């Protein structure tokens, strides 16, 4: 096998690790629906159920990256549909500002996704996961962050 082919097969074998924080009331149920209606989606995604997207502290996201996530997704109810009336509106402000901070510090914005998936959108969930997994695959391992993690203490 030529080196190029080897690289190619290594790359296709590599699976990204995507951590997803899903709100209990919409996105988690949406993912559940995708499963129940036998819509497949890549297993690269590791789902963590949270009560509300408003619960997601930016530190959760940073911690995920620190523990080796290649991409992080936060998904909640569509605006107006929050089980707690306004949790996702707060999440929207907080997380979009956080994403700008990450960008400012030199972290690729594409590594951090935010989405709205309702309990009825099993199909959207399935296609969304396929889409972001393909993107994570194309981006490759989060090397800049991994190098930082392994570096010697200053």
């Amino acid at each position, binding site marked *: 096998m030529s080196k190029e082919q080897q690289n190619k097969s290594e790359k296709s074998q590599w699976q990204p690790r995507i951590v997803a924080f899903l709100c209990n009331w919409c996105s988690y149920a949406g993912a559940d629906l995708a499963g129940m209606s036998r819509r497949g989606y890549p297993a690269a995604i590791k789902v963590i159920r949270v009560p509300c997207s408003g619960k997601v502290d*930016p*530190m959760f996201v*940073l*911690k995920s990256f*620190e523990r080796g996530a290649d991409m992080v997704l936060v998904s909640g109810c569509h*605006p*107006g549909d929050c089980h707690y009336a*306004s949790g996702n*509106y*707060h999440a*929207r*402000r*907080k997380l*979009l*500002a*956080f*994403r*700008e*901070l*990450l*960008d*400012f*510090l*030199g*972290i*690729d*914005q594409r590594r951090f*996704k*935010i*989405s*709205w998936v309702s309990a009825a959108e099993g199909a959207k969930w399935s296609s*969304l996961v396929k889409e*972001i997994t393909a993107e994570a695959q194309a981006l490759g391992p989060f090397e*800049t962050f991994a190098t*930082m*993690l392994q*570096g010697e*203490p*200053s």
Partner: protein
Amino acid sequence: MSANGTITQALREAAAQMLSDKKVGVVIGYGRDEGQEFSTPVFLRKAEEVERLVFDDLCFGNLAVYLSRPAIRKMGKTGIVVKGCDLRAVNVLLRENVIKREDVLLIGVHCGGLGEPRLPKCLVCEVHSPTGCDVVVGEAIEQPEVKAEQRYTKADEIEAKPVEQRWEFWQKQLSKCIRCYACRQVCPLCYCKRCIIEKNTPQWVETSPHVRGNLAWHVARALHLTGRCVGCGECERVCPMDIPLGAINQKMAKVVDERFGFRSGFSAEDEAPFTTFSTEDSEEGIL
């Protein structure tokens, strides 16, 4: 750089008056002993001590940091010398109910800027004259117009670099951090009794001075100050490793200014952007 005689004299008179009238339990101001490079905080309990008070263009500290300290609260009503920029921090403390308006007596000073050469924040100062103080000393200073694009020049400069260079820049800067937390101690708005850095179940931020924990610490600090930081620049001034922390705070101030049209500390009544929301907020970048 000599002390500004007229302001100093007026300050001493005002402080002596309120201390002898027992209107306040303590006056917090600036003092400078012989041989000191710049003016440092002084705490006056008696009218006889007012000779220690000075005001000059080396009064860097933001004295509002002491207002939330329990030891100061115990001394009774607090008289405090505030420049226009410090007053913004006091406004945030009032807004967040850390202090009550009746518990402080604000002694405003008209300030023409600090340091030689002038600090960057003083060059674009919009609050040469404090408003809403109980006493104001000094002569009013003409307020030059500051354009919106002059506000966040430090953040703009870093933002103009491509993303890889930004990463490299911040990695270099943040790896210098020795985690002394001087930036936290000096910040008038970092008044939590228990900081996230001290929480260890779970351990949110690694405590050793390694760049991964340093990054997490500075991200946490920036986010906790988003929509609150008034840009007094104290964190950057006290940083022993010269990390440009002001640029991070400036970036977040720019974010809330651009997204929500909000600027912190100009009023004690306004609502902080992260305590409220609008259904009209941007959806850009959400899948």
